[in-house]
């Protein structure tokens, strides 16, 4: 049962009471005034109109004043209520601010607020905990003083992006108060004023030194272990091979056969170690390809030659099927041979004695497609992708181990992917398998080195020797332009300060021409950079190397720019199709 709401009655009651009281008082007042005005001479039997008027006026005044009092009371109440509300919300505001301050100071990550020049405006408590500095000593100082010199470019680039409204994530190394290096994973976000203008940036940085160290430790461990494992294997293999070759006296057939098994298993173990090492490098993106311009057909023939004997032992028919026109392409022979050996090893293992295995390659448009085909047991279609998955294999290591596909396929696909190719399988159970991979048909990149000091040009050339680029040189601006137009290199490494025509002018001229405007440029300079002139070269960032430049830095920048150029060319091809 719902209770009737009685509040309105109370309110009406209180309202009418106030009015009644006032009306009563008003009436009495009217009477009193009437009496006074009559000079206190009452003629009680006579009902005078005056009386009525006085009483009425009194009543009206009373009524009005009653309403007025009521209104004032209500206003008073409202005011009190409002004041109370304001008081309460002010309290709430204080606690919200406290809460945010708390969050800011006790966050797990370092939070830094910087102005548009990259100077510290505010930092939280973690700043001291992780970096070891007192916050006060850094306020007003530049963020770039906090980080290692090597990371400055990364930091500046990302800071600019943030000021433009972006929210980049990146890693950099900061210098701890104690001198050690702290690896930070940073997330930037712009700080805006009331109008929405970006006036600075907030950087949330997480200390990832520990995981970095672990990664490094793991890498070192694997590299070390692989070395330690190889040494005894080498001696074992050599002794087995000496015995097989009859250096210590003739062996009978069985003795020889068994020793050959020993040798084959040592080779297998060595390959597993290779794959382990490669995988650890792949996980840390440390595989560096040593690409060369070679005849792929020759490489394939060599691999076939090496495995002919092993196939013959299983009475397997190993054949080579090469397309008519085999282009010379750019690839890392050691790595691609490793892929071929992995595929061939699997094929031989899963093909019964007396089976057929074919190594082949042909040109297919802008790519070269190679394959290893067998008529062995085949692979279920639901496993066609899974066999390339290294995590799957690690988890089901045992199962896959029995099936035979080890880490080899994951590594092989990774190597081909690094070559910007693809790897896939076509197979049916009982019908055999064909593993394919493609490699793009590309030429060795061409690099133009420009410096007016011939010794420096020679040195830069030496830096690049191991990478098999086509290197051309120029010793002044005019020569540089002439050669750039004639040869259209992929990259120009350009000194800025040269007599007659300086590097900026060379860049300008390169940009004007249709043929040369796509060439990437790396700047060499002993002085500060004229940012405006660099910007005039286009929307592309121009990397600058400060002299004297170290080999590692030089090679890293050149390789990075050539990769970008390759990507641009590939995109251009795709767009052109």
């Amino acid at each position, binding site marked *: 049962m719902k209770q009737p709401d009685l509040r309105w009655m109370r309110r009406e009651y209180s309202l009418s009471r106030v009015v009644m009281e006032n009306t009563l008082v008003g009436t009495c007042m009217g009477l009193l005034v009437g009496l006074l005005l009559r000079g206190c001479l009452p003629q009680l039997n006579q009902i005078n109109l005056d009386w009525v008027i006085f009483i009425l006026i009194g009543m009206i005044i009373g009524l009005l004043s009653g309403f007025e009092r009521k209104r004032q009371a209500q206003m008073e109440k409202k005011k009190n209520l409002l004041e109370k509300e304001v008081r309460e919300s002010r309290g709430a505001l204080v606690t919200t601010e406290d809460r945010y301050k708390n969050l800011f100071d006790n966050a797990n990550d370092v939070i830094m607020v910087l102005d548009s020049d990259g100077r510290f405006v505010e930092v939280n408590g973690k700043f001291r905990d992780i970096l070891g500095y007192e916050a006060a000593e850094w306020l007003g100082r530049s963020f770039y003083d906090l980080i290692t010199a090597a990371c400055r470019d990364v930091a500046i680039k990302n800071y600019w992006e943030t000021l433009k409204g972006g929210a980049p994530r990146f890693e950099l190394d900061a210098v701890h108060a104690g001198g050690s290096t702290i690896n930070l994973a940073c997330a930037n976000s712009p700080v805006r004023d009331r109008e929405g203008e970006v006036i600075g940036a907030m950087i949330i940085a997480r200390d990832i030194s520990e995981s970095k160290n672990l990664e490094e430790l793991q890498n070192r461990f694997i590299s070390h272990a692989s070395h330690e494992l190889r040494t005894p294997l*080498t001696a074992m293999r050599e002794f087995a*091979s000496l015995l097989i070759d009859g250096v*210590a006296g003739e062996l009978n057939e069985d003795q020889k056969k068994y020793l050959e098994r020993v040798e084959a298993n040592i080779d297998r173990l*060595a390959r597993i170690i290779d794959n382990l090492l490669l995988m650890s490098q792949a996980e840390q993106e440390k595989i560096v390809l040593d690409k060369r311009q070679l005849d792929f057909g020759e490489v394939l023939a060599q691999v076939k030659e090496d495995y002919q004997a092993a196939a013959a032992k299983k009475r397997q028919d190993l054949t080579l099927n090469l397309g008519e026109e085999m282009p010379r392409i750019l690839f890392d022979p050691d790595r691609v041979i490793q892929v071929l050996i992995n595929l061939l090893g699997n094929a031989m293992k899963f093909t019964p004695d007396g089976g057929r295995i074919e190594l082949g390659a042909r040109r297919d448009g802008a790519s070269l497609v190679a394959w290893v085909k067998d008529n062995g047991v085949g692979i279920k279609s639901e496993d066609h992708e899974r066999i390339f998955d290294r995590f799957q294999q690690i988890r089901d290591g045992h199962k896959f181990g029995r099936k035979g596909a080890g880490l080899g396929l994951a590594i092989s696909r990774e190597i081909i992917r690094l070559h910007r190719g693809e790897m896939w399988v076509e197979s049916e159970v009982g019908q055999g398998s064909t593993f394919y991979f493609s490699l793009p048909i590309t030429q060795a990149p061409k690099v133009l080195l420009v410096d007016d000091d011939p010794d420096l040009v020679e040195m830069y050339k030496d830096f690049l020797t191991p990478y098999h680029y086509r290197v051309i040189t120029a010793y002044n601006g005019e020569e540089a332009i002439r050669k750039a137009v004639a040869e259209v290199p992929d990259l120009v490494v350009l000194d800025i300060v040269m007599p007659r025509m300086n590097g900026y002018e060379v860049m300008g001229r390169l940009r004007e021409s249709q043929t040369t405007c796509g060439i990437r440029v790396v700047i060499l300079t002993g002085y500060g950079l004229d940012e405006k002139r660099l910007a005039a070269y286009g929307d592309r960032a121009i990397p600058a190397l400060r002299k004297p430049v170290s080999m590692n830095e030089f090679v890293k920048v050149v390789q990075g720019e050539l990769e970008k150029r390759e990507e641009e060319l590939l995109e251009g091809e795709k767009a052109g199709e």
Partner: protein
Amino acid sequence: MSENRNLVLVVDDEEDLVIALKARFQSAGYEVEVARDGLEALRKARTLDPDVIILDVMLPKMDGFKVCRMLKFDNRYSRIPVLMLSARGQEVDQEMGKKVGADDYMVKPFDSAKLMSRVKELLGN
């Protein structure tokens, strides 16, 4: 024939591998000298004038890269072919090998037949 036998200097600190390589080269008709650390290698290379050097990378006293560089940058010995053997299969090593002027480079464990044919090639040059 015997005075024309080629001299191989095998440099490795792994005794087992030294024994095996020695047997291998001797059975193939080579004369073999052995050095077990970098300094000994340098000394023997200079005094014995070998026809080819099989040089390990990780050696006591002076590593193989340094030994190779000191020989290759010295006009008197730079013509002696050097084949480097390394248990490390990393790119850096091969690059280093090239940089210090090694004539060939093989990763351990190696195929003996390949090693022998490469040595033959180096001697042919």
